[in-house]
């Protein structure tokens, strides 16, 4: 093995490392579904804190009907 070919091989390895893990179609779909579920959960949590603040904080939702 010559020095130049070793350098070339190292270059290929680096390229592989940069490419990283390739997800399959199924893995990508599953990841997207999980991400959406996490986003919805966080959104619900934000809305919950907002509404409870209105109820317990300034109590604007505690007016008599």
């Amino acid at each position, binding site marked *: 093995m010559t020095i130049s070919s070793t350098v070339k091989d190292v270059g290929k390895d680096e390229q592989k490392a940069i490419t990283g*893990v390739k*997800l*399959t179609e*199924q*893995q990508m779909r*599953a*990841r997207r*579904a*999980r991400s*959406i*579920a996490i986003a919805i959960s966080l959104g619900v*949590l934000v809305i*919950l*804190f907002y*509404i*409870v603040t209105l*109820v*317990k904080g300034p109590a604007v*939702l*505690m007016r008599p009907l």
Partner: protein
Amino acid sequence: MSATLVRVEPSIAGVGDYLELMKPRVMSLVVFTAFVGLMVAPVHMHPVIGLTALICIAVGAGAAGALNMWYDADIDARMARTASRPIPAGRIAPGEALAFGVTLAIGSVVVLGLLVNPLAAALLAVTIAFYVLIYTMWLKRRTPHNIVVGGAAGALPPAIGWAAATGSVAVEPILLFLIIFFWTPPHFWALSLYRVGDYARAGVPMLPVVAGEAETRRQIVLYSLLLAPLSAAPWVLGYAGALYGVVALVAGALLVVLALRVLAEQGSEAESRHLASKRLFAFSIFYLFLVFAVLLVDGLAANPIARIAA
């Protein structure tokens, strides 16, 4: 210094797998009993705060379920009933389930403490810890009394609901706790009677595996005899009306009859033995739902204006 690289396949777990990890059927009974505890409490509670409490209790119960599935994945893999759960089936990695469970457990307790009250949050934390540490990690694999003591975790939700509404604990939620506590052994032992092979294979020392089926049948009758009058106690002590008292006594009597049938089937053909156990198991679920539903209706009937205003 050397490092070992472990190649982990990217997850294919879907949202449904994570929901399954939260044991939705157990969660529904937990939420229902907590809801009854919350509604029978003699205070006005804003519906948003009540809903927040129920969401936190549901998520906390789900977290406990996920942590149970994480720890018991080896047992689940050996039992027909549980082999298709997300971890033994390979859809979710154990580490993912652990992280999911811990995150939800901490999140549900913190949110309940911040948005509802600290006592309810403390009770939820105790419930999760009891279920995971005392029942799952300590008792389940060591003693046939696992589900007797562990039943305390499943019995706490009405007290959490009550505490969420009132900020305190009283005799009434303790009675509700005791009803579920004494309901748990006959419920699970009825199941274990027709799944005894599964439990034996998995090395779980359920009562029929350790003490035999005859002893289990006797214990089922004893606990049912304790449960029937106990479930009428809210009426006897004046916390519920006659409607509840009558339903609790009739349903309790039916439970005892089914338990006696399980005892009477001792020594008969496997098919009829299993049928009696299955009937008791199915009725026990209906029994708990009925008792709590009537308690709720009875409470609403006794004080409808206050409840609606709440």
